[in-house]
């Protein structure tokens, strides 16, 4: 088990955005977090990555309680994320985005950076090679020198995913990675996520049911900040409460 | 001792009203356009210098006052069209630098037309100082204070109690939304600068009799105005007035009771403390910062 949430609760102005949320992520698993808009999914992501601190509860990651850590400390512990509204480093090149994402893979500080020629630096070479490898894997290698902002939207989504991967985290939080992608792109993404299971555990917020059913090992359903169900895709698919609360009467799972 | 304190209070209120006037203009422009105008002090100077010229050709003060306001307002509008309007969508920093450019150019213009001499303006009402409780009070101080109050009341009513005022304030954060409400941000920006020019001149003409007018005094006035505005919370009209008065009184009392050489240091330290610990201003309610 890599991550365990206990009784996570967060209030905004007296209203609970998430309440008593508990679930676990097993190593190498993809856990999908689903629920209607405003169910508290992104808030939960913000809590897990340290951007928000919960009013109560604990985040046990690799056996340690992580409450009170800032996002960069969470990242160095091995938890990274992507964003629903893309947060690429738009003015930097695609390659630089990945290399910046691999920040934790290097050690050189401010002063050392100042007096070392980057091309004489083995660390720099290694990070560059690794970054190029990651880009190649997802088919962005020939765009390495383009500014990230110049990529088409779908590629930007991919780039952000690769950037999160570059630090070699043990847990990645994906916030609606398939939003805005076309059918072909979504399929590529789904396959890629499955492929990533060898390297890392994942939590996935997604509305695209096809992706979820295909990729997720477990599903956690949130509604009004509470976990109303969790289980395997097959279990969730037939859970009456979920169908009632989330999927609605008229929507069918394909 | 009581007389001395009263005297310091009068001095503080006089200077404080001047700072409030500066702070008010800065805050109103900031509220409307989101631009921190570093050239506001120059508007004041140009307005006052126009009045100096008008007075010198024999116009009575009652005519000089509105005419200078009108001319300075026109200048404000012209500047907006020539600079700010052409730089739509520039970043905050770039806008700030454009206003620095405006301030430099206006200072040069003032130097060119009026030279380096210091001028004074006639007081609105004749007669010597009033003595209240043994402390002297210059009648012009009362005028300045009154102008600050009128300005404040006008802005407060506009921003807080009219539909347009609220809409305009909201349009800073949301340009599209503003357009939907039928507000054209470019027109608003023009009007804001016209107002800033006019307010500047009004301030200039009324403070002139006390502060005198030199082509290069604008920047310092502007800086004091910022400090006043920042102490008051930067986007808050009542904050600017209170910030200005607070700053003026603080300066008067610290130079009158502690040391005249530490006066500026004390007010800057207060500024920094406010920025660090109460960025919403000394009176503002705690809330999330947007900027």
């Amino acid at each position, binding site marked *: 088990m890599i991550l365990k949430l206990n009784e996570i609760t967060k209030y905004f102005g007296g209203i609970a955005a998430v309440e008593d949320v508990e679930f676990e992520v097993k190593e190498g698993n993809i856990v999908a977090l689903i629920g209607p808009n405003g169910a508290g999914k992104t808030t939960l992501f913000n809590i897990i990555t340290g*951007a928000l601190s919960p009013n109560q509860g604990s985040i046990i990651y690799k056996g340690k309680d992580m409450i009170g850590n800032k996002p*960069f400390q*969470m*990242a160095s512990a091995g938890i*990274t*994320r992507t*964003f629903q509204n893309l*947060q*690429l*480093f*738009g*003015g*930097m090149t695609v390659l630089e985005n990945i*290399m*910046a994402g691999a*920040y*934790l893979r290097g050690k*050189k500080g*401010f002063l050392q*950076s100042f*007096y070392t*020629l*980057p*091309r004489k*630096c083995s*660390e*720099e070479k290694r990070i560059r090679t690794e970054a190029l490898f990651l880009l190649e894997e997802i088919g962005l290698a020939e765009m390495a*020198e383009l*500014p990230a902002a110049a990529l088409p939207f779908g590629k930007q989504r991919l780039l952000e995913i690769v*950037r*999160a991967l570059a630090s070699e985290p043990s847990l990645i939080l994906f916030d609606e990675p398939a939003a805005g992608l076309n059918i072909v792109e979504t399929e590529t993404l789904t396959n890629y996520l499955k492929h990533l299971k060898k390297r890392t555990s994942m939590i996935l917020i997604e509305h695209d049911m096809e992706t979820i059913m295909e990729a997720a090992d477990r599903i956690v359903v949130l509604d009004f900040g509470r976990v109303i169900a969790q289980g395997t895709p097959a279990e969730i698919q037939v859970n009456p409460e979920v169908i009632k609360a989330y999927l609605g009467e008229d929507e069918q799972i394909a | 001792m009581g007389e001395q304190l009263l005297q310091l209070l009068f001095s503080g209120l006089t200077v404080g009203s001047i700072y409030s006037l500066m702070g008010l203009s800065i805050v109103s422009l900031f509220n409307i356009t989101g631009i921190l105008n570093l050239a506001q002090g120059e508007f004041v100077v140009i307005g006052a210098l126009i009045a100096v010229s008008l007075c010198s050709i024999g116009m009575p003060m009652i005519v000089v006052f509105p005419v200078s306001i009108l001319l300075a307002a026109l200048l404000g509008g012209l500047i907006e069209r020539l600079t700010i309007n052409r*730089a739509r969508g520039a*970043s905050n*920093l*770039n806008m700030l*630098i*454009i206003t*620095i*450019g405006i301030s*430099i*150019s*206006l*200072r*040069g*213009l003032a*130097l*060119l037309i009026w030279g380096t001499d210091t001028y004074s303006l006639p007081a609105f009402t004749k007669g010597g100082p009033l003595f209240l409780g043994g402390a002297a009070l210059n009648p012009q101080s009362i005028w300045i204070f009154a102008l600050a109050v009128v300005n404040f009341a006008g802005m407060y009513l506009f921003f807080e109690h009219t539909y347009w005022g609220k809409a305009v304030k909201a349009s800073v954060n949301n340009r599209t939304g503003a357009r939907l409400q039928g507000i054209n941000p470019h027109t608003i920006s023009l009007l804001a600068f016209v107002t800033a020019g006019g307010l500047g001149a009004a301030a200039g003409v009324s403070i002139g009799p006390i502060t005198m007018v030199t082509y290069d005094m604008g920047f310092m006035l502007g800086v004091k105005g910022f*400090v006043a505005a*920042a102490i008051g919370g*930067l986007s808050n009209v009542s904050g600017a007035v209170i910030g200005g008065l607070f700053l003026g009184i603080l300066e008067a009392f610290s130079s009158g009771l502690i040391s005249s*050489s*530490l006066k*500026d*240091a004390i007010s*800057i330290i207060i500024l*920094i403390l406010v920025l*660090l610990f109460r*960025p919403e201003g000394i009176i503002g309610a705690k809330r999330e*910062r947007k*900027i």
Partner: protein
Amino acid sequence: MKKTTIFGIIILLFILIVSLVVKSNYLFSILIIIGLYAIIVQGLGILMGYAGQVSFGHAAFYGLGAYTAAILTTRYHWPTIAALLAAIILPGTIAALIGRQTLKLRELYLALATLGFGILVFIAFNEGREFTGGPSGISSIPFLNIGSFAFDSDRKFFVLVWAVLALLLLGINNLVHSRTGRALRAIRESEYAAENAGIDSASLKLQAFIFSALLAGLAGGLYAFYITFISPAAFSYHASIEFVLMAVVGGLGTFWGPLLGAAVIVALSEILREVVPLLIPGAGGEYQIIIYGIILILLMVYKPEGLSSLGAVFDRSPKRAEQNTNKQ
């Protein structure tokens, strides 16, 4: 051949040729001033262009450097080179002390706070009579010397300042393209995303702030050893604003921006001084100021990304400025 090598050769050639060919002390002094300002603006450029933090108080660090060098040599008779070292370290230390709190502020609030800091230090220069000589300043500062070699002519000082500048350019080029440089740019682009990549943005911003203060202190120390007289007037907030202008005019986040900005602003005022009277007979400083202001406005209106973008027609990272303004 690697670009860095070419760059090194070009700049060395430039220093060599200028120092051999130029005879005019005036030209040297202009180049020295450009060099000193470029050193400050390099640091400010890292802070503003990469870490995305504005400072309207860098004249304070510049002044602290100058006063440290002046006081240690004239009052305590330190060797000049040791005093120069202290002139770098002291502003850096002060930046470290005030930085963490100050850098929590954003944009306009940060601008006001740094402006306030600058004014405070300026007041200290004026009031610390015992040490600083008050408004009358400190005179008879010795020339910088290393052993028996003194930098006592404009030519020697030019070589020194530009050699320092060249090393800095090289170092900053390293920095910008290193792990740290990428992290700094990442913070500017999206602080939140940078944090999620494990970048400690508060600490890096602080380091950039300290770095820029070190460079301003270095320039200040060199200035004191060059002019050999200092008074508070040179370190007022006007100077701070001028430095920000140089950084922005040159182009933020670009390699040549700081040098270009410093050169253009200094050269502009010198050229206007020579040219304006030719265009408008009898014209004095008045026109210079107006023209200077207008050029500044035009530049910001039509070239908001700075002058170095003029040379970057073929640059493969276009739309940088657009990106920045579109970000929320």
